[in-house]
């Protein structure tokens, strides 16, 4: 019984970390600018492809490839933000949704054109494969690595958000953009930074998830629902919310599949509905 619980929580945690790393940027940018960026998953996918291609074509080591994915996608995303997204701040939601879902389909088509429809193989370094024995039982190494990475990132983001000047500015802008602007915070510039870091994190999440869930051109839309659920359940603009939501959803999804496989992914949706009925703004979202 204890063993079952450990299995469920452990595997759920690893899955939750992917959800968290990819979704946190989406949550903050949505909270900050009210921009519905459905193309966020496409940035995650780009990160996955950069990681895989750097490793397979140029022989770059896995950690370095992940770092490159983060930087490259973050930089490219700034171009997207300036050229496309910036025109839509304050536009109505339908326009934003149409533009960004269009970007998703263009991403899927271009990735299929350049890399083919098949999933990309990844050869993760041997020190991350196999099992680690933690005394009472052994766990798959890669999942342990995912969990450690996820918690480390959470700590880093929390420090950046709560303890730095720019973090304070972001929080202020999420709470009340007009007020933040009127006390002299350059919200536009702030948003570019947040958007780039958010997209970079998505890319990192994409690169990390190749080993666990695979990477093909439909990734951008396949997991979009889950990313949006994390944002909605956690509450827009909240790092803590995204983290808690990812944990709850990752573990519930895993428990459902483990204990009642016939139910499929029913639980994750049921839970979402229940949480949103009780708290329409999400766990940590501010009420309108």
């Amino acid at each position, binding site marked *: 019984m204890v063993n079952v619980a450990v299995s469920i929580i452990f595997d759920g945690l690893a*899955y939750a970390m992917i959800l968290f790393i990819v979704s946190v940027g989406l949550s903050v940018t949505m909270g900050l600018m009210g921009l519905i960026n459905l193309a966020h998953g496409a940035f995650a996918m780009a990160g996955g492809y950069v990681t895989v291609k750097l490793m397979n074509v140029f022989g770059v080591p896995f950690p370095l490839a992940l770092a490159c994915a983060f930087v490259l996608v973050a930089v490219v995303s700034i171009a997207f933000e300036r050229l496309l997204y910036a025109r839509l701040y304050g536009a109505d939601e339908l326009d934003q949704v149409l533009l960004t879902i269009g970007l998703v389909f263009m991403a899927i088509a271009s990735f299929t054109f350049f890399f083919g429809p*098949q999933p990309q*193989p990844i050869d993760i370094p041997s020190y991350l494969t196999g099992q680690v024995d933690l005394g009472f039982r052994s766990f*798959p190494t890669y*999942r342990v690595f995912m969990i450690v990475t996820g918690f480390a990132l959470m700590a880093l983001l929390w420090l950046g958000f709560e303890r730095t000047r720019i973090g304070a500015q972001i929080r202020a802008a999420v709470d009340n953009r007009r007020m933040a602007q009127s006390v002299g915070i350059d919200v536009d510039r702030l948003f570019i930074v947040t958007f780039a870091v958010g997209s970079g994190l998505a890319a990192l999440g994409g690169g990390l998830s190749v080993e*666990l869930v695979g990477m093909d051109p*439909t990734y951008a839309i396949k997991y979009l629902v889950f990313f949006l659920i994390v944002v909605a359940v956690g509450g827009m603009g909240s790092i803590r919310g995204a983290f808690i939501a990812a944990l709850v959803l990752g573990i519930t999804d895993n428990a459902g*599949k483990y204990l009642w*496989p016939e139910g*499929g992914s029913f639980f994750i949706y049921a839970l979402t509905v229940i949480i949103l009925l009780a708290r329409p703004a999400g766990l940590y979202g501010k009420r309108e």
Partner: protein
Amino acid sequence: MRLMKTVLCLTALLLLPGLAQAKTVKVGVVLTYSGGAAQFGEQIERGMMLYMQQHEKDLGGHKIELIKRDSKRPGGDIAKNAVQELITREKVDILTGFVFSPNAMASAPLATQGKVPMIIMNAGTAWIPSLSPYIARVSFTMWQSGYLMGTYAAKTLGYKTAAMGYTDYPPGKDSVNSFKMGFEAAGGKVVDSIPMGGPREVPDFTPFFQRVKDAKPDAFYVFVPAGNHAAAVVKTYNDLGMKQAGVTLIGPGDITQDTQLQGMGDGAVGLVTMHHYSADSERPENKAFVAAWKKAYGDDTTPDFMGVQGYDGMAAIFHVIKTLDGNIDAEKAMAALKGWKFNSPRGPIMIDPDTRDIVQDEYVHEVVKEGGRLKNKEIGKVDQVKDPCKELKVGKCGE
């Protein structure tokens, strides 16, 4: 003299139609050409084209025109539309292809209404040929591998308990049902049966596999569609250390598909599967087939069971065209297919005259590493297996 001329003229007239009537037979090909399943379409088509190139001259002047349609995904809807269009607008003489079972099932009624012979090159759900009198299958049925694997696991491998995991669509249920029947008839006990997501997307198999690992059966029988699902299964099996925990992974050969095998790594060593084909088979017919394949498509390619099914399917189409001299009629075509025998690269095959389903040898394969590469080594064989589902009249197969 005059009589002579008349006789000559008459003879010429009689001979003429035979010489001049070279027919073009339209073959509608419904395969997956895009998305994650594109690799299956490519395998089958390469097998078909290889046979056509090798035997084109045997057609006695007749030509084959292939009209290809993309069935994209397993849902059945796109395939059905494609078949409708092939029958009504393109007026095809023969239908072939069909990677996924739901696609074949959705198309079967159209073959009946349009009276078009339908030669199935993959879709393996046992009762598919019962859906239309114009269906013949050259691939396999899930029961051939599943039922036999069940018997083999209990009798030869000596397993007492087994858990089963499957992709939740008709051939998956078929495969585990047949395994269960074979395994329990031979004295084993199935302790768990786990649906593991659908065929369209590869799920994270970890929670399902962890559940089995914690339950500790002797064997874990897994059916998933060949391709990316299969690669993920072996990966998850290794990541969780199930082999070390004493749970052996077994299944139909879909999980050790030749085209995926090298990518699975050493973790695949020791896997035991039941299947009708391996590219590593030592049969001379197979060696010639693999050599021709590599010559046509490159040294780094290999046929897998779908490739050989495409090859054999085209052989069946050739047989029909030759027998009917290019004039395709559904009833006559089916009569020609019933009892058709062919010395395939996989071994001798036959279309059962009663069920229009394939009769073939099944091989027990074990993955071994030889000379730096993984191969499916033949460690056992069952001769000329008819579909056990229809033999035992189980469920829909008995109707």
